């Protein structure tokens, strides 16, 4: 068997032909330059190889099927040349693969992960371990068959992954992930035993998504609604025009929809969430599987949405902004990577929120978050700004504040937003700003104060007529774009000042990127101490019971 990794001297500049040392899979010493699995270029380039094979082989194969000689008569004399030419192309491709593989090496040392690539044009990328935003282990179907996996290491850089190692053996990938996460967390390797493999952090399952609910959520999703609408329209159209032609033109649309459904199903299948000291672990996928690790405090913003039809079953969807994941448009996989929960009930949402925001910053999180998800300001209330029960400057929600302490748009904007004015609102806990909006498409956005980048107040001419303003919070690229819609001008100004102060305070509290050495990590590490997974969300269990009681009143 080929040794998994040919070893070169630590920090060695030249790719010296040092003999490979087998059996060093575990416990690689620090600073060693390693190579990815030799089969990886073929797994990445199988499409190219298949294309070459198809190009050269198709004609002969067809002739074989038709029982004719393998080659056209005019070519028979040149068979050796043709074979030699084809072989040469194949050889060049394979040689190219091997060269790229040979000159791609990676190293984890001194707080950095480095990757060297290139033969003629050398490139070295390095990323600071304590700036890690997320680590993903991705297994496309072919790699999964061979037991290989790709490791993606995201630092704060929108769009492109900082470091991609494709492919490693799955055990090595897990080991490397554990090493990187441990270093990033601030664990110093034992000087006595630098070769000892760092154990993977223990994890506790939080929730898993049954396939039936996934299918149900897809059937009731927005795209199904528009599909039904389109189908009805085409039936009417064909009846009116009395032609069947229209169905023919619908075929590509139907194929596209089927592909979209399949994609969602494939990505959402077997979705499980777990918590470990290294952060939130998400796993999902039917054919291609993916395992994401989001270290504590790396989530910049969370969005909980509920399409109208999901209200029947009380389902929600959760999406997150993570620096490095980028927006859904930046690459094809963005949409699934930013999905924190494809579909889940209120209890699931609360549980995930408690992972994202270990310290909700309010004594009664269930009431506040439920009000954010389903609540609405009472219609008869005087303008919310005058209500003494609104959130104070310091963001402390008084116990008896109605509607979870949410401060909604003033009554005067009911002409601008006839449906949403009682719903659009915000509230602040000690640790996060909650923004809710939408009466039909319900939405709740949670932005931790520590993660606020910058903010802006916006006001157009129409909004000025109604003395309202929008507050936009800027966060990293992603599906969540927090915006307080049509808050009263005075409330918006107060929020602008108060939020700037809160973000300042929160920044002061956060001192280190290494989460084990942080000042207040107690809440994150808490689940580790409870060995029983059921006790993990002990703190929130009463909340769930309460949610079910409170839900109807708010809905």
């Amino acid at each position, binding site marked *: 068997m080929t040794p998994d990794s040919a070893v070169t001297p630590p920090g060695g500049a030249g790719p010296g032909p040092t003999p490979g040392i087998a059996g060093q899979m575990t416990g690689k010493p620090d600073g060693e330059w390693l190579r990815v699995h030799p089969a990886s270029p073929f797994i990445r380039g199988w499409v190219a190889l298949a294309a070459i094979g198809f190009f050269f082989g198709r004609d002969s194969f067809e002739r074989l099927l038709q029982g004719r000689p393998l080659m056209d008569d005019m070519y028979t004399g040149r068979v050796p040349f043709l074979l030699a030419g084809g072989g040469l192309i194949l050889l060049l491709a394979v040689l190219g693969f091997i060269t790229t593989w040979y000159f791609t090496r990676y190293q984890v040392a001194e707080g950095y992960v480095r990757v060297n690539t290139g033969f003629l044009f050398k490139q070295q990328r390095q990323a600071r371990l304590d700036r890690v935003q997320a680590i993903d282990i991705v297994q496309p179907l072919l790699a999964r068959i061979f037991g290989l996996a790709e490791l993606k290491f995201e630092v704060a850089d929108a769009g492109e992954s900082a470091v991609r190692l494709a492919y490693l053996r799955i055990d090595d990938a897990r080991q490397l992930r554990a090493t990187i996460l441990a270093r990033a967390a601030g664990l110093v390797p034992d000087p006595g035993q630098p070769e000892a493999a760092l154990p993977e952090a223990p994890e506790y399952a939080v929730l898993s998504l049954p396939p039936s609910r996934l299918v149900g959520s897809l059937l009731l999703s927005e795209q199904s609604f528009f599909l039904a609408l389109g189908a009805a329209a085409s039936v009417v159209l064909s009846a009116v025009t009395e032609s069947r032609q229209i169905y023919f033109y619908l075929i590509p649309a139907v194929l596209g929809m089927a592909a979209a459904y399949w994609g969602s199903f494939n990505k959402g299948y077997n979705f499980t969430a777990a918590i470990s000291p290294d952060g939130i672990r998400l796993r999902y996928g039917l054919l291609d599987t993916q395992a994401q690790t989001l270290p504590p405090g790396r989530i910049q913003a969370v969005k909980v949405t509920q399409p109208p039809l999901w209200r029947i079953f009380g389902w929600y969807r959760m999406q997150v902004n993570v620096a490095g994941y980028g927006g859904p448009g930046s690459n094809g996989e963005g949409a699934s990577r930013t999905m924190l929960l494809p579909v889940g009930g209120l209890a699931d949402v609360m549980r995930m929120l408690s992972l994202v925001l270990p310290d909700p910053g309010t004594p009664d999180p269930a009431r506040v978050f439920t009000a954010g998800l389903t609540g609405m300001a009472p219609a008869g209330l005087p303008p919310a700004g005058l209500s003494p029960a609104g959130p104070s400057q310091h963001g402390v929600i008084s116990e008896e504040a109605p509607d979870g302490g949410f401060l909604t748009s003033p009554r005067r904007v009911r002409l601008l937003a006839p449906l949403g004015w009682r719903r659009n609102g915000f509230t602040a806990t000690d640790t996060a700003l909650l923004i809710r909006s939408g009466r039909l498409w319900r939405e709740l956005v949670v932005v931790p104060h520590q993660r606020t980048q*910058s*903010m*802006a107040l916006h006001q*157009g001419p129409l909004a*000025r*007529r109604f003395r309202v*303003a929008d507050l936009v919070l800027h966060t990293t690229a992603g599906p969540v774009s927090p915006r307080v819609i049509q808050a009263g001008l005075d409330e918006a100004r107060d929020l602008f000042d108060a939020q*700037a102060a809160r973000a*300042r305070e929160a920044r002061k509290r956060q001192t280190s990127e290494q989460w084990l050495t942080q000042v207040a990590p107690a809440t994150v590490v808490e689940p580790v101490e409870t060995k029983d997974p059921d006790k993990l969300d002990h703190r929130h269990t009463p909340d769930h019971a309460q949610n079910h009681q409170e839900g109807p009143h708010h809905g």
Partner: protein
Amino acid sequence: MPTEAIDPPGISWLRVSPKYVTVRLVEWAFGNLIAVAVLSLPLVFRLAGWWEWVPLWLAITVPAVTLLLAVWRLLLIPRQVRAIGYAERDDDLLIRSGIFFQRTLVVPYGRMQYVDIGVGPVERGLGLCTLKLHTASAGTNAEIPGLPADEGARLREQLSARGAARLAGL
């Protein structure tokens, strides 16, 4: 219509150089005059008798409306420039702009990743520069145009120093 500023009261704004109006005028001329000229071509062709199919009212209305809008924008420029302001507070920088569509932006020093200074050809002639702040968010569109060059340099040094002192992670 009374225009009430949306920014919090009690802030003394520093204004950008009045010379920035010239920069905006040049930009305006490039954009709008060319548009008006191109849109006037059908009218010219029509009057010259080359194009018969263009309705005369359309050939007149389109460039006229464009010209009207352009003049409207031209008249707004001095007020827009006067509306741009910035204020350095202890922990953050405030930037405001706009009259009809107002915007007030706050960028904490600890969130700034880097500070750019850009100088265009017209700005260089007038000794102005544009300061741009970058945070981890692409949504932060923090630009202070029309700063005198020495004020821009001072602000950049000041912001960099304060940013380094208060630097926070993401």
